[in-house]
């Protein structure tokens, strides 16, 4: 492992629903400025920028960064589906490890209403191999493709372990409860398990309130070296204890929906992070994980080894995923309630965890949190797991 990488500034805008947001460059500007102010530096100290977004023409990253300053630094546009934000973070960390002193990672997204779909239907679908698996295992339906994939994984899990429908809904109930304390979240209204189950069915076992909404938003983080932090008199900064990125292995394309949506990919990624950091799942205090659908949050508990395989249901009903339990997962409300602007999500997770480790999470503060874990996953696919610490 190279140099220690600190996260000295974070910022984000309140997430909004499609049609009700500002332009992407405006949202990104606000997030970057917040992060810079949070770090207590000036923009001209930033040496490189990694800008993540999924939907937009090329060089939206420059448009967003230029709004803060035309300093002529390298700007790299990053696109890695739902894990775009944390991929920008991954590159920023690598840049610091490679010798840079201060780097910006920013993610933003201006989404359309409705479920995700292909923008470029005149060429080969990048998810073709994944779709083929689904096709073999459960066929096509009229539901949104992502819901079919993650919902299908939920079906497979239910079949294997006999999980009740309510268990998935319970995750969403928790997400809403957490989000009700988060002023940056899109959905702050709590919902009961009954209401969640009673919402329109999207793809059994997923109902509408178990699917993350299309969202617009932006978030940013400033990363720096120890020396840079010292120069700016930043004491006890949050730092990245370990980080890994994985992509699909052959197991993703066996006839399993669970594996196709990235279970093994996430499991390998987490394993690398635990090994690199020398910290096991049992030591983690707070987690932001990729709950694009309730089914994926459940699967991720097991992939991150928060519980044993097949025991997620018990884990949930024992309350081990919320305040008072063994872990607090998605204190921000997660993708389900805070929202999921694809490019911004990975950096919004980072923002939440930095606040948590600094004790700045206000009403949703996890007590005495010193170790935090981030899991961000995109189909296609890529998974980034990051462990943060504050000593």
């Amino acid at each position, binding site marked *: 492992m190279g140099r220690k990488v600190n996260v000295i500034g974070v910022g984000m805008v309140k997430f909004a629903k499609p049609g009700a947001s500002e332009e992407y460059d405006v949202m990104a500007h606000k997030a970057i400025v917040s992060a810079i102010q949070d770090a207590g530096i000036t923009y001209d100290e930033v040496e490189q920028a990694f800008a993540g977004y999924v939907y937009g023409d090329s060089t939206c990253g420059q448009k967003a960064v230029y709004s803060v300053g035309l300093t002529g630094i390298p700007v790299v546009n990053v696109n890695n589906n739902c894990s775009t934000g944390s991929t920008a973070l991954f590159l920023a960390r690598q840049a610091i490890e490679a010798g840079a002193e201060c780097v910006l990672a920013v993610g933003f997204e201006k989404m359309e209403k409705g479920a995700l779909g292909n923008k470029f*239907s005149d060429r080969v*679908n990048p998810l073709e191999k994944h*779709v083929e698996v689904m096709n073999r295992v459960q066929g096509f339906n009229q539901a949104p493709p992502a819901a079919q994939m993650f919902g299908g994984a939920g079906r497979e899990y239910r079949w294997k372990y006999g999980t009740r429908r309510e268990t998935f809904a319970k995750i969403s109930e928790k997400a809403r409860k957490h989000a009700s304390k988060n002023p940056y979240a899109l959905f702050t209204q709590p919902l009961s398990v009954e209401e969640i189950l009673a919402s329109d069915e999207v793809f059994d076992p997923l109902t509408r309130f178990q699917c993350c909404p299309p969202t617009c938003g932006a978030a940013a983080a400033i990363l720096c070296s120890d020396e840079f932090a010292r120069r700016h008199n930043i004491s006890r900064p949050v730092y990245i204890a370990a980080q890994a990125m994985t992509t699909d292995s052959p197991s993703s394309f066996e006839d399993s929906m669970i594996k196709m949506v990235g279970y093994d990919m996430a499991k390998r990624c987490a394993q690398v992070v635990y090994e690199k950091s020398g910290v096991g799942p049992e030591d983690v205090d707070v987690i932001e994980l990729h709950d694009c659908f309730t089914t994926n949050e459940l699967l991720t508990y097991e992939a991150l080894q928060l519980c044993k395989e097949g025991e997620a249901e018990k884990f949930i009903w024992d309350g081990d995923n919320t305040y008072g339990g063994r872990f607090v997962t998605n204190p921000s409300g997660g993708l389900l309630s805070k929202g999921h602007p694809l490019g911004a999500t990975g950096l919004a997770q980072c923002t939440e965890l930095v606040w948590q480790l600094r004790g700045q999470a206000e009403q949703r503060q996890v007590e005495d949190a010193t170790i935090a874990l981030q899991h961000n996953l995109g189909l296609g696919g890529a998974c980034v797991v990051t462990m943060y610490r504050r000593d």
Partner: protein
Amino acid sequence: MSEQLRFDGRVAIVTGAGNGLGRSHALLLASRGAKVVVNDLGGSHTGSGRSSEAADRVVAEIKAAGGKAVANYDSVEDGAKIVQTALDTWKRVDIVINNAGILRDTSFRKMTPEDWELIYRVHVNGAFRVTHAAWPYMQEAGYGRILFTASAAGIYGNFGQANYSMAKLGLVGFANTLAIEGAKKNIRVNTIAPIAGSRMTETVLPKELVDALKPEYVSPLVAWLVHESCEETGGLFEVGGGFMAKLRWERTKGRTWRLGAPITPEKVRADFAQITDFANATHPSDINAALEPVMENVNAPPSKGGNEFIDVDAALGWQMPEITSTHDERDMALYALGVGAAKDPLDARELPLVYELHGDGFKALPTYAVNPVIAGVLKLSAEGRNAPGLNYGLDRILHGEQYTEVFRPFPAKATLKHKGRIKDIFDKGKHALVISAIDTFDAETGERIAYNEITTFVRGAGGWGGDRGPNTDVPVPDRAPDVVVTEKTSDNQALLYRLSGDWNPLHADPEFAQAFGFPRPILHGLCTFGFVGRQAIRAFAPNADPRYFKCIRVRFADSVFPGETLQTEMWKESDTRVLIRTKVLEREKVVINNAFVEFYKEIPRGETKRAPAPAPARAATTAPSAPAGPSSAAIFQVIGAYVAKHPELVKSIHNVYHFKLKNPASEWTLDLKNGAGSVTAGAPAKADCVLELEDSDWVAIATGKADANKLYFGKKLKISGNVMASQKLDFLRKIDPAEAAALVGTAGATPPGTGTPASSTPAEPAREPQAPAIFRALQERLAANPKLAAEVNAVVLFKVTAPDGVWTVDLKEAPGVKSGAVGTPTTTFTISDEDLLTLVKDPQSARWLYQHGQLRVDGDISVAHRLGFLKQLV
């Protein structure tokens, strides 16, 4: 001969075994190896006295023959002692034959309470005591055979035996429940109603008959029923004099009243013949089967109500017997004259309606389409073949509204078939509307020719609080009409019109008309209707050509007398639609309102009749004529029109689809990428997504009769290129039927994806639902093998769809199948009738069905792993 049925090692108790039947049973079982407790109190046949003599004699007889037996002299009311004798002697009890009995015959008036109670005590209480004492040993041993002795007197009644009959039939009910309770532990319980000459029957049968009816004729059945290889249980048998037969319950089909409307004694009286009619009887064999009609009715949609005139539940959906009619140019010409055509014989526009040799060809007036229908309906009515539940006289009814539509130029000569049904019944408060819908087909080709809706206004028959129905008002615009036609009807117009088939004397017989309160015969409403249709065609159809005519709707507001002048005002609402109102000038009365006529933009082609095969070599491979319905070309036409109107599809879909259809082969391009989008025949230069399928399957998908996903997985639909792009074809479902019809201007074209409107296509022959048979078979399987349940240990609720039905399968406490939702299920399966059959054929398919969303599982899903009990049920 098969091997002898042996009872070696078995211990049997036979009560009342000192004489008659009991003795015969005991001797037979003992002769075949059973160890027998010979019980007899030694009293008289009326229950007085006691001695050990009778039992001892039979025991001695058995022992002399080399068998094993022990005597017991206790009363059956001390049943535990009898059982104890068996346990003390041989430490087990396998068989109990409840045979002991006495008589206290007397006519009911003279019967004392002692007569009644003694009979009860010996027969019912005695059988209870003995059986109850043996039961726990049998349960623990997991084996038992019990026999009860009933009597024909109990089943059918017999003079002077009220007490005995009560007791004997009581035993039948007793045995029925024991059969159920004992099923799991291999305890079989049966009942015989023997007839034999014995001390007991000496009092009721002549001496010669008593001698002929030997007990030995009864015992073989008893021996078989208590043998270990006999699985029969819960049976009731008549036996004696060489005759053996099994009885069962028979139940009439009965009469079911939908819940929600009052059920009165008068209704019961009215339908009592139906309640007691054994035609189509059933034979319920258990309480679930018995409750089936009740549960079905409880779970059925509630009554739509009605009153003494109209029973909506009974009438709605009734299918009329098929009507056939024939007509030719002569009938068409006569009809045209009847509705005032060619009053000016030099009028070139109307002459083709009545002159078959006209240079432009004879043209049929399409409003005729209602005539054979009305004539047929009246004929059915005259023959008493009316819809059930419509109990009003002709004096109450008026022809309220008429809608007639043709799907192609009406043929001048044809044989037609008409298939009708009661489509709707509406409660208009004081009055009621009954709407009959009739589809007309060419008898030869099956092509759908016309559709009629007859709205019958039933005076004073409303008011049950039912559905009021839609508003069918068609108000005329608030401006001067575009065309006004004034025509005087002839004084003999009705006499001329009636020759087209409406023979109601109201239109011809002055006295009859007066009896109905009219000063003189009135004109047929449908004659006025024909006038209006003809006037609209003449005024608005291109070249007054009736082949452009599509449909007409009118409401009959008042009567017309022959000779009166009709003034028809017409407003052109669009190129294809005219609004109409007709008045009688003399009386200034509106006689037709809320009326319109619609036209086709182009003359619809209809289906060409198949030419006789020109004897080609390959004639045999020619496909049979397509059933009436849209062609794939018509469907693409609709899609093309829709695409033209929705250019935004190009932005949202942005794909080029290539359809390759087979049988017959055709290729189509649906371009939703370039320009404003288009549908063209032939292959595209470059497609994003290629769909290959049978022409008939494409029509089925587009008309909502087949599911694209199923065809895809059934390998009947092949998709290549960008597979995900095929999903975007979902927009086809959004095409509104009305919009589609308007776009294409042909009613024959059906919008894709929406299914045909209910009124426009004859119902497909329905697939026979499988679920009822499957669950009946499951019930039988569970009854025969209750152990199956233990492997599942759950209560499973099956919600079956298409067609809907609900069954509760108890595989836990009391294994069995109940119709409807009963209790709290462990697991609920929601599955279509068709997929249920798949599941039964191969329970392993559960996972596939579940993962594909075709089996929905609520509650404990692990039950889905244990569906072996369903295997090969049908």
